[in-house]
């Protein structure tokens, strides 16, 4: 076959017109910075409204986003930039015999073709514990989609065609795709030099074998969770710009700026200070941006060509460009007294991490420590395993480790309820953990955990209206009109999820904030600067609210997140309100103290008798105030503070004991479903959630987190799965990997409680993840209620729900 002709316009920069290429959202500052900063680079944003902690002011980035002017990482543009592309392995396991790039390099419009031989520094990186992931594969490819070579060209289509001209000679090897074999069969070939076991974490409490002899009721089950994808809508993308000092300026969408740099710098052979990273607009994350994607690749191409290089994955590549949620195989056995009191739990959890370590260590830690959820069980044996295979690589996704276990332990609680003749809420209340109780790890719950009360509130919620067979949109199958109501049965189910908030097991995931107060244009203005990633969750809104509450000044400007300020940790583990919120609060209080000292000196009083409120310094006992602007004059007050949570302990490697978690959060769901039991179609009629968040910082944002988390749990229950056969992904597209649409999502009913955690800023409790845990088992329980089937695997497929398999 003859190759296609070169594209018209190759040899000149793609994206015509420097005049129009700057877009409409960049403002006048762009022109002045045009030589060093790309068009559509992030810029500081003034937070609208005047709301403090507890209010719901609009998002600072909301207006830009609804106008289409928010600068996402895929929108970056720079004069003379090239487009990068990645050649990926078609095989889950193969030996690379030879790579020939000569034909690709000769293709018109191509500026560079790189392989592992061109990696300037370390050839491996990794997010956690082990740096075992190659920048570009060499020797062996260990999963389908593993990056092998890179191209930079003047048009994305030219780059794609050049990829087709790279000749890679593979010797195809048999992939290891059976996680159980990887864990327990020492004769199977190792995927990694250190073997196939990433981590085995046991938890041992009491004497399970003795308790088994006393149990009046035993129940058991085997459960499976498929591979879920984060499916953020904004694919991996960014721009690398070579800098004059030999370093690189990176504009990317990530969850953790400083940890990216820590991994990128050694691979580029550069000191960390020569990498300047600015967070560009992030189109969702959900854990999928915690690992690196295009960061090192674009940097290598930029440093080699001396030109800015933009990389944007398409949807198919995105499915191979990030880690997924670990699939799990779980075996549970519970024993109890006849009245439903749990005596023992005997649990095995097996998590398939794919070829590289990524976050598997922490995922196993979560699955082990939260393996039986928020229930008091006197005798526990848990063995949680994470393994390497040649299946798709897995790592962080919302609720990691806890999501998989939650599906199993909640299914077990329903099974126990059935065996004891109790209703599902009562069996949970009988065994509910509460403040002062202990987790499986022996950690004492040191903050309110009103689970029994939350279950009671769920019990009292009104039920949705009965099925209306006259409305086809409300029936399973929807507009396909597969039923007029015949064969449709209603079911109700419940789920409870327990999630650790912030990083665990001894990790000090601190955050840093720089807060500056000065008079700009005659108005006192607070500038808040952190490296914390706004990924959609509304952190920038909360940062502005905290600044207003602490400093009594309405005008707050949020600066772009970058590494000119200290580490903020990751936007994961539901931790940023706690950690970066805490850092902003602490830095604001340091600024406030200096303002009050300044005012006291001018007024000749003691600073202890003054406070900041309503834009004024006022005597604490009341009386006339002085405007902050008058106190400050030309003085600029700036303070930078770190915020650390209380230290945590590692889990004992043999017993799993240890106070490993920073904070615990709980969500309870009730799901009501209508099921066409003949066709196996499910319509979720309503989802209700009760969640204790400690303190509501912003109700509108918070509700959005609970809604969105519940939706991802619904997806895992009913439709979302990366299907894999022999290590190959069968459905890497939005046509074949289904996520919930507005027709799949039911109306939601929320009941939000505020029992403060005295150790957390404002008493808050991280809120983003818990709803993702509990909605899945609640929906599956409701489908079981409607069908009477065991349903031990998610996502449910129609053939399961119709009882055909």
């Amino acid at each position, binding site marked *: 076959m003859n190759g296609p002709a070169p594209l018209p316009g190759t040899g000149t920069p793609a994206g015509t017109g420097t005049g129009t290429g700057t877009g409409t959202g960049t403002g006048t500052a762009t022109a002045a910075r045009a030589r060093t900063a790309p068009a559509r680079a992030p810029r500081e944003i003034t937070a609208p409204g005047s709301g403090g902690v507890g209010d719901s002011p609009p998002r600072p980035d909301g207006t830009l986003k609804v106008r289409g002017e928010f600068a996402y990482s895929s929108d970056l543009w720079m004069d003379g930039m090239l487009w990068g592309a990645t050649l990926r392995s078609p095989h889950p396991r193969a030996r690379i015999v030879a790579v020939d790039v000569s034909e690709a390099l000769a293709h018109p419009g191509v500026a560079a073709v790189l392989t592992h031989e061109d990696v300037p520094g370390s050839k491996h990186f990794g997010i956690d514990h082990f740096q075992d992931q190659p920048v570009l594969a060499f020797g062996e490819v260990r999963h389908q989609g593993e990056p092998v070579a890179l191209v930079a060209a003047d048009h994305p289509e030219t780059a794609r065609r050049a990829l087709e001209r790279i000749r890679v000679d593979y010797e195809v090897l048999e992939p290891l795709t059976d996680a159980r074999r990887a864990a327990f069969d020492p004769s199977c070939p190792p995927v990694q030099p250190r073997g196939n076991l990433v981590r085995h974490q046991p938890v041992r409490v009491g004497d399970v074998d003795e308790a088994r002899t006393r149990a009046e009721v035993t129940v058991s089950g085997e459960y499976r969770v498929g591979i879920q994808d984060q499916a953020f809508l904004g694919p991996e993308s960014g721009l690398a710009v070579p800098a004059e000092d030999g370093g690189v300026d990176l504009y990317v969408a990530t969850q953790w700026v400083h940890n990216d740099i820590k991994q990128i710098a050694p691979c580029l052979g550069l000191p960390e200070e020569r990498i300047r990273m600015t967070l560009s607009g992030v189109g969702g994350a959900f854990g999928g941006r915690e690992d690196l994607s295009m960061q090192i690749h674009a940097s290598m191409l930029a440093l080699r060509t001396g030109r800015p290089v933009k990389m944007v994955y398409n949807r198919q590549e995105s499915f191979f460009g990030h880690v997924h949620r670990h699939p799990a195989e779980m075996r549970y056995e519970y024993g109890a007294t006849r009245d439903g009191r749990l005596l023992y739990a005997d649990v095995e959890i097996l998590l398939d991490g794919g070829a590289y370590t990524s976050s598997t260590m922490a995922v196993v830690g979560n699955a082990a420590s939260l393996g039986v959820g928020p229930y008091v069980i006197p005798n526990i044996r848990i063995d949680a395993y994470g393994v390497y295979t040649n299946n798709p690589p897995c790592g962080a996704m919302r609720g990691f480790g806890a999501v998989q276990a939650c599906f199993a332990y909640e299914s077990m609680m329903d099974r126990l309820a059935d065996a004891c003749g109790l209703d599902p809420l009562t069996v949970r209340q009988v065994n509910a953990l509460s403040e002062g109780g202990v987790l499986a790890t022996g950690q004492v719950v040191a903050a309110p955990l009103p689970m029994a009360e939350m279950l009671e509130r769920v019990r009292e919620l009104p039920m949705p209206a009965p099925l209306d067979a006259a409305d086809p949109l409300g029936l399973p199958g929807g507009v396909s009109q597969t039923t007029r109501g015949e064969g449709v049965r209603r079911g109700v189910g419940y789920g409870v999820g327990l999630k650790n908030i912030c990083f665990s097991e001894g990790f000090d995931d601190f955050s840093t904030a720089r807060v500056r107060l000065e008079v700009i244009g005659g108005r006192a203005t607070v500038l808040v600067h952190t490296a914390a990633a706004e990924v959609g969750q509304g952190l920038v809104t909360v940062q502005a609210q905290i600044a207003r509450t602490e400093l009594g000044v309405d005008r707050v400007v949020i600066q772009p997140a970058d590494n000119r300020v200290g580490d903020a940790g990751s936007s994961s583990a539901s931790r940023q309100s706690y950690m970066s919120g805490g850092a902003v609060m602490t830095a604001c209080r340091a600024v406030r103290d200096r303002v009050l000292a300044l005012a006291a000196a001018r007024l000749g009083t003691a600073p202890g008798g003054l406070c900041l409120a309503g834009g004024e310094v006022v005597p604490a006992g009341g009386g006339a105030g002085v405007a902050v602007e008058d106190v400050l004059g030309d003085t600029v007050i700036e303070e930078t503070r770190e915020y650390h949570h209380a230290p945590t302990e590692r889990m004992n490697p043999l017993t799993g004991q240890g106070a490993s978690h920073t904070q615990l959060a709980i969500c309870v769901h009730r799901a009501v479903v209508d099921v066409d039991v003949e066709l196996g179609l499910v319509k979720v009629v309503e989802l209700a959630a009760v969640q204790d968040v400690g303190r509501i910082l912003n109700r509108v944002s918070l509700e959005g987190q609970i*809604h969105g988390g519940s939706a991802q749990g619904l997806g895992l229950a009913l439709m979302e799965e990366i299907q894999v056969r022999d290590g190959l992904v069968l459905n890497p597209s939005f046509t074949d990997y289904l996520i919930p649409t507005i027709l799949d999502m039911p109306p939601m009913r929320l009941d939000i409680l505020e029992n403060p955690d005295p150790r957390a800023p404002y008493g808050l409790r991280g809120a983003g993840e818990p709803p993702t845990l509990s909605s899945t088992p609640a929906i599956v329980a409701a489908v079981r209620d409607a069908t009477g089937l065991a349903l031990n695997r998610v996502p449910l497929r129609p053939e399961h729900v119709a009882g055909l398999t």
Partner: protein
Amino acid sequence: MRVTFTVNGRSETADDVWEGESLLYVLRERVGLPGSKNACEQGECGSCTVYLDGLPVCACLVAAGQAEGRTVRTVEGLADGDRLDPVQEAFAECGAVQCGFCTPGLVVQAHDLIERVPRPSDAEIREALAGNLCRCTGYEKILDAVRVAAARRAGADPVPYGGTPTPEERR
């Protein structure tokens, strides 16, 4: 090839367009309108929804050449200067925007719905927006935003948004 079309009231000409390029690529990379988003490039997600001669389409599924001589309106063309369209205003106010990547497409699609059906029912909103994927919000706040936008555009009392109503309050 050369493509000339009207976008947001302005005539644009793009030169050296490859025949395989989509309208979305031309908008984003050649005429400086990156508001329409590329999230799937196969018409599944609706993030690139624009008006083409007054009808909402996925710009990723329209070949650039098909836009020749036609009129396109993108999310950047909805506001009147600094004044947001009621749909945009309601999306920002009601929490319908989180990461915002789906927002441009949803705003255009919801705008079209309210043009056709001034006071849509919830079922009509769901049906109209069924082709637009959102991964962040679970869609509840998007429904709220469309209800609020429709009410305001119809001149009903502008009720300040205070959170998602319960199913009972909604009825």
